[in-house]
């Protein structure tokens, strides 16, 4: 790999990134004149200023890949552990350290400086990769926020205050009298707040719109539209700020992107980065029409993950599903290969058995089915929901059947259901243990293993359609055969690639990209 500073390429990067600098002319002047220490004087930053230096292509790629690994770890830990639990912090700490990113407020000379520089630059590179679509932006913001929250909480109180000052974050504090009069209410609203704490530390008063995370979970006292935030919860407000700034910045980045994408050396890396985490999203329909409607009942028992089996059953029994259920199940069916015509027939025949007559179906529900297939409205071809999406968003309420049964069902009811589906008692216990540990996807994987009678699922579950595909592969005896075919193909390819004479840059880059995949195989 070339290890040369490519000035024209890096000039392009700088050009793009410096458009952000235009926003902060004052600060920029200060930056040019400052010394190394000033530049990274805190281990944490808001990433307000883009980096203004030349870097090599190697560093560009390494930094980006390592930060992506870090963010992916953040994502995985966020689903499999309770955030800020001991397990979570230990694992995240280890990852940050092994990837050489800054942690705590150690001012350890050159190596610390290098870590902070890496933090700074890698963040901005990933902005380029993740600004292009709504989904990518949302994902990036979510992980960066979780990372920031972790790092901020990890700071000593003094360094937290330092950070607030350095970034000009001034929040209105509540007067002593007001604190006294609201003391009981404040203590009752915030976990871990005592009378002495209220007296001794600041309580901040911000409009509730600036403290949405605390409002949403009802962890703060609200009065007349203001949230009263104790000092130790200030991170939430800072995070809100962080999110707003990052969101705006990404929108701006997206506009400047075409210039960067035109560079052949950057383009493959950036697009590979943004696809690496997603893996298959089942948005492109394969096998359209291969499944017939008559097969669905049988398939639901054999190859559907529990959530879809549940939805299918509810649909058959009630001849109806609410919006959340229609979306989750309908998109899944699209993902397994139902065509639009088949889908319309499927939903209509079921709804008509219920309280909906054919006319009403065509008027009200058919539109929404076509919408799912991208044939109405803004014509977005909706992608089937991943496990993460099912588990984390839109929890079911009264009358709903969607969601993840491992996450959203009472353990007792889940147990009964599994018993009905003839899962062995020991298997059920294993599943319930996993559910208790909040490992919902692993619980579903275990369900797969028990219903297919295999020791090891052989894949890491993160999408209901993946469950279906793997199940079908297994049941048609396809999996083992496929492995052999892959191996023989690979051994055939290797001698061929060695004899390939010249290696153009892009081709070489492409092969190197192949190795990137191994970074992201799920453990």
């Amino acid at each position, binding site marked *: 790999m070339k290890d040369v500073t490519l000035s024209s390429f890096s000039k392009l990067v700088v050009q793009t990134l410096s458009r952000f600098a235009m926003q902060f002319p004052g600060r920029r002047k200060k930056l040019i004149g400052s010394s190394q220490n000033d530049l990274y004087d805190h281990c944490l930053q808001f990433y307000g200023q883009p980096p203004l230096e030349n870097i090599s292509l190697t560093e560009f790629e390494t930094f980006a890949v390592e930060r992506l690994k870090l963010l992916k770890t953040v994502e995985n830990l966020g689903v499999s552990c309770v955030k800020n639990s001991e397990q979570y912090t230990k694992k995240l700490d280890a990852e940050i350290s092994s990837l050489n990113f800054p942690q705590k407020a150690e001012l350890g000379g050159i190596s610390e400086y290098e870590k902070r520089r890496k933090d700074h630059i890698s963040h901005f590179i990933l902005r380029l990769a993740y600004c292009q679509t709504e989904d990518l932006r949302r994902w990036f913001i979510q992980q960066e926020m979780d990372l920031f929250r972790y790092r901020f909480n990890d700071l000593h109180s003094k360094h937290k205050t330092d950070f607030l000052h350095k970034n000009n974050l001034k929040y209105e504090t509540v007067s002593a009298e007001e604190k006294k009069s609201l003391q009981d209410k404040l203590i009752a609203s915030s976990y871990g707040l005592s009378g002495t704490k209220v007296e001794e530390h600041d309580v901040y008063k911000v409009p509730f719109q600036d403290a949405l995370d605390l409002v949403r979970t009802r962890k703060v006292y609200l009065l007349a539209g203001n949230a009263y935030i104790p000092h130790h919860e200030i991170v939430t407000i800072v995070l809100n700020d962080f999110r707003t700034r990052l969101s705006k910045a990404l929108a701006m980045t997206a506009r400047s992107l075409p210039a960067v994408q035109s560079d052949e050396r950057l383009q493959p890396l950036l697009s590979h980065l943004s696809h690496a985490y997603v893996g298959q999203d089942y948005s492109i329909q394969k096998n359209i029409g291969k499944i017939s409607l008559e097969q669905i009942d049988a398939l639901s028992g054999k190859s559907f993950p529990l959530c879809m089996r549940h939805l299918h059953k509810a649909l058959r029994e009630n001849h109806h599903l609410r919006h959340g259920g229609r979306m989750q199940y309908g998109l899944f069916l699209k993902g397994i290969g139902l065509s639009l015509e088949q889908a319309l027939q499927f939903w209509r025949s079921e709804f008509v058995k219920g309280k909906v007559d054919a006319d009403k179906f065509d008027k009200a529900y058919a539109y929404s089915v076509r919408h799912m297939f991208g044939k109405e409205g803004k014509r977005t071809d909706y992608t089937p929901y991943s496990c993460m999406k099912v588990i984390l968003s839109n929890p079911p309420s009264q*009358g709903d059947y969607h969601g993840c049964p491992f996450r959203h069902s009472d353990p007792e009811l889940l147990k009964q259901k599994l018993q009905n589906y003839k899962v062995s008692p020991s298997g059920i216990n294993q599943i319930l243990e996993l559910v208790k540990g909040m490992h919902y996807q692993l619980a579903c994987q275990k369900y797969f293993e028990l219903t297919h009678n295999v020791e090891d699922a052989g894949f890491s579950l993160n999408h209901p359609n993946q469950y279906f595909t793997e199940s079908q592969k297994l049941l048609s005896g396809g999996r083992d055969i496929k492995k052999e075919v892959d191996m023989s193909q690979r051994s055939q390819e290797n001698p061929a690639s060695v004899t390939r004479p010249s290696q153009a840059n892009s081709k070489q880059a492409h092969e190197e990209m192949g190795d990137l995949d191994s970074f992201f195989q799920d453990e």
Partner: protein
Amino acid sequence: KELVFDIDMTDYDDVRRCCSAADICSKCWTLMTIAIRILDRALREDFGFHHLLWVYSGRRGVHCWVCDDAARKLSVAARSAVAEYLSLIKGGEETVRKVVLSDPIHPFINHSLSVVERYFCQYAIVEQDILGSKESVDKVLALLPEDILSFPEEKNPMKRWDRLCTLSSIKKGGQYFDKEIMLQYCYPRLDVNVSKGVNHLLKSPFSIHPKTGRISVPIDLKELNTFDPFEVPTISLICEELERPRADEAEDDDVKDKENEQEAGERRRIRDYKRTSLAKYVKVFDRFLEAMARSRKGEMLQKSDLQKDF
């Protein structure tokens, strides 16, 4: 776009015995009264909103339109946060115990509980009779973790409830069971998706419900206890009332010139609603609008003062 809330009686089907689906009666209507009191207080006192319009949907629920400037400018995330702050009932078909309380109890929950407590005995124990038959008692007991109690001898539902409350207060770790039950049976259930979406459509006030013919009228909170959804005028009633001869206005016609005839016609049309049962509801709406106009004027004066714009 205004911040809106939709409370639908069907969402309470698992906890009301008198009706189900689209039906309502005077017994379960109390649930709407409770919902309005709790949400109105929270939106005003906790969130600082002033301009709330509560509207009967025409069949089985109520809507709330929050029209403050600040509310109309809320982002999707903010609307969703407000809706979740106001939600205490979590879980769908697969969850039995839908309310879980733990220390510390947030002031909002305490306020809501005090509203529920005012209505609970009459509504749940007497009218809904939740501790009467074995079936309903079992449903209540299912919300408690173990078989901590049953009622072999005691037949009086009110005494049963007292016993439950006493046991709840003395049992270690069970201090909130009675409160959780009250909330599960009475606390408002709102559809978060309606409030979240900036594009979500909601029935307009004064529109007519296609299934019942009832008009979606504003609810006067001062008369909330006596509001009766079955007294709300239907479109046929209004038409009937409009058909009635205009005895008292016959003289007006004779006196008007030809020039003023058109004006008079318009004035007559505008006055017409006053002869119908809609009159009092329009007054509620007018008062609401006047309050908004006053507050807007106040704001503009403030703004122009700040700008030294005389």
